[in-house]
């Protein structure tokens, strides 16, 4: 019966998926909390009380705020910020305006590509002149 519902209505599949993701995320948050408290207080009774209290507050009472914060923390830890910086700053815009005087260093992928094209064109012109 459940499978028929899942096949007929993709929404049920999505609800099931998000419920499972929520559970997985909560387990990871709990493990992070346990590890953090144990590192600071050891494995005594006080640490278990603290884990219980903080676990209730983070996982149930304030999950709507702590869930997204943990997700953001995980993404930043995996280095998503480096990808964003690459996209918006390193490869954005293209090379700066050429000014007179010293040639600027290679600043972006577009700049490098243009310089390579220029070098190819120059070598082709030299070959024609030699003939």
């Amino acid at each position, binding site marked *: 019966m459940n499978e028929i519902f899942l096949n007929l209505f993709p929404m049920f599949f999505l609800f099931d998926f998000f419920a499972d993701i929520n559970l*997985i995320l909560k*387990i990871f948050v709990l493990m992070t909390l346990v590890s953090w408290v144990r590192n600071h207080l050891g494995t005594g009774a006080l640490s278990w009380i603290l884990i219980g209290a903080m676990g209730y507050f983070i996982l149930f009472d304030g999950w709507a705020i702590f869930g997204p914060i943990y997700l953001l923390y995980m993404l930043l830890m995996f280095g998503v910020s*480096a990808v964003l910086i690459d996209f918006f700053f390193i*490869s954005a815009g293209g090379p700066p305006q050429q000014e007179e005087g010293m040639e600027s260093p290679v600043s972006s992928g577009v700049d490098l590509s243009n310089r390579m094209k220029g070098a190819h064109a120059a070598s082709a012109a030299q070959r024609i002149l030699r003939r």
Partner: protein
Amino acid sequence: MFGMNEKGNILFIIIGAFVVLALIPVLITTFFWPAKILMQIIMIFVVYTTVRGLMGSGNLTIIISAILIYFMVFKWFEVFLSLYILQLLLGLQFLSVVIWGIGTNLRKG
């Protein structure tokens, strides 16, 4: 944001490249079953090592690992395989190369 991009919507092209990168391992494991078993074994080890690193050795580690392995390696294998491969590529800074390559080839000053 798109003013810098004169030849096509590069943001969607980069997102599309990420989706393709995430879909390749799913397609391989769908059509080639030994790859699926291999990736499942690798993911089981990764999950268990992560849980043991956070919780230490003990019965609780086995229980939590079993729950996570059921959901991540068996029930939603395709989703978490994609995420695992993307995480691996992020760790190797490969996605920066993808962005640089797409930017170089498609966005001509």
